[in-house]
């Protein structure tokens, strides 16, 4: 079941004395052995994203002796990453992630070749980046890039080791394996922005990407070794709270626009547009929704004006910081709208202004007229009015 790559077979490589010692626990396993370890050394793996999933991935692939690792990430390390992105240390905050990850992985295993790409993955550079690698590992965090990674992998005939997480739930599988399904067989289209709960339900348990990323690392190594049964045609679902794994069958869809019999996609497209994100660019924020800035709100409050504050975040967010508003989470608003008085002027806010815009849309359809969206949410309040307020 080994992946059909030329590089794994042809290159003449040997292990040094130090490498034999380093990989001795692999070498004494019949499933790996010298032959397997040399396959690992010849292998070329590109990881997209060095964040939560990319952290265990990079660490385990480097430790296992994968000879050529590419790390794609354009972001910089933020202190809020450290809760789960275990490649990085506090001293890395502010550094480019791809560079910090490369330094950490090189320290772990100086014998391997690591290339960092401090760039966004785009339709323009994806094929060129992917071409030099045998296996692509998707550790990204958004729909446009996931569709891009899938399409570029299918176009080049490379396996795409997939993992994704949400709060305490994870999914993993291998797409793009010869004869197996691709991401679009499972999800032909992305969810429209706004329909899938995002920020309101955001957050992730730090250990979860560690587990799902480790599963991706294991599948990557199995593909390289040609050992065991790859996670192809099976979607692994993991519920960390219940500590339960389940498995669903994934089939190649005959109608798949990417890998089906009548494929309609033959080149990379504009994935932001495809995911409806461009269309959302001028959303609701200004479109018929009156905005008030944090500074203006403070000024009016200081003048003694009675403005009703509605906070549409979740209770646990309210505990972090709040503006003493009435808390009705966005998801509960339709049911609890009768708790609100449409005759009073109301300022609606959330963390950054997105959920409150959705709330105002809803309230407008329910007949409310005196509405303001707090521009930039509590984040803007912390920036403009109260620097002591914690940002999250």
């Amino acid at each position, binding site marked *: 079941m080994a992946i059909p790559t030329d590089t794994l077979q042809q290159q003449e490589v040997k292990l040094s004395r130090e490498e034999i010692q380093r990989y001795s626990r692999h070498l004494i396993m019949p499933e790996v052995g010298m032959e397997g370890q040399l396959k690992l050394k010849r292998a070329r793996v590109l990881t*997209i994203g060095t964040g939560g999933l990319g952290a265990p991935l990079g660490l385990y692939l480097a430790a296992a002796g994968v000879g050529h690792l590419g790390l794609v990430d354009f972001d910089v390390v933020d202190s809020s990453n450290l809760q789960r992105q275990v490649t990085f240390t506090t001293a890395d905050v502010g550094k480019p992630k791809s560079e910090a990850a490369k330094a950490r992985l090189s320290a772990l295993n100086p014998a391997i070749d690591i290339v960092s790409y401090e760039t966004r993955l785009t339709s323009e550079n994806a094929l060129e980046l992917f071409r030099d690698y045998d296996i692509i590992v998707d550790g*990204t965090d958004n729909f446009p890039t996931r569709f891009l990674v899938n399409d570029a992998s299918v176009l080049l005939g490379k396996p795409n080791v997939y993992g994704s997480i949400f709060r305490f739930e994870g999914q993993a599988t291998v797409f793009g394996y010869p004869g197996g399904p691709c991401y679009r067989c499972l*999800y032909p289209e992305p969810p429209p922005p706004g329909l*899938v709960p995002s*920020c309101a339900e955001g957050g992730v348990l730090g250990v979860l990407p560690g587990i799902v990323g480790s599963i991706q690392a294991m599948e990557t190594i199995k593909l390289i070794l040609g050992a065991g049964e790859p996670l192809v045609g099976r979607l692994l679902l993991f519920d960390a709270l219940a500590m339960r794994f389940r498995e*669903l069958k994934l089939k190649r869809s005959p109608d798949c626009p990417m890998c089906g019999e009548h494929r309609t996609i033959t080149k990379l497209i504009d994935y*932001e547009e495809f995911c409806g*994100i461009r269309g959302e660019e001028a959303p609701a924020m200004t479109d018929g929704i009156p905005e008030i800035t944090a500074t203006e709100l403070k000024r009016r409050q200081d003048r003694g004006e009675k403005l009703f504050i509605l906070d549409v975040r979740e209770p646990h967010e309210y505990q972090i910081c709040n503006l003493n508003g009435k808390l009705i989470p966005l998801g509960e608003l339709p049911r609890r709208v009768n708790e609100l008085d449409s005759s009073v002027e109301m300022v609606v806010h959330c963390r950054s202004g997105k959920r409150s815009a959705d709330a105002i849309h809803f309230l407008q359809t329910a007949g409310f007229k005196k509405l303001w969206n707090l521009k930039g949410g509590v984040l803007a309040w912390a920036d403009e009015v109260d620097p002591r307020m914690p940002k999250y």
Partner: protein
Amino acid sequence: MAVKVMIPTPLRQFTGKQSSIECGAATVGEALGSLTDTFSDLRKHLFTDDGKIRSFVNVYLNDEDIRFLDKENTRTKDGDTISIVPSIAGGSEPCPKTVSESKRFKV
């Protein structure tokens, strides 16, 4: 027929945080209909305005995708499990922080 519908994390906010719901139904469509009758906020997340299952929501009867069975008309047996599998994208950051940031290609 008593069937169990497994609710994925992103949709549990619409089911009073319950991770699974038991209901009586002879087909997958009936089970989902009964579910969205009980939890009406869930409807727009599962169905389009004309009542079709949304293309980014996958529904499984036990471990089989109903698209490859008889879709919504797939018949259920006592003790079957229906799973709703929505697409999730998280990996690095928990979610796009703002609308303007969400259009970045974060990798």
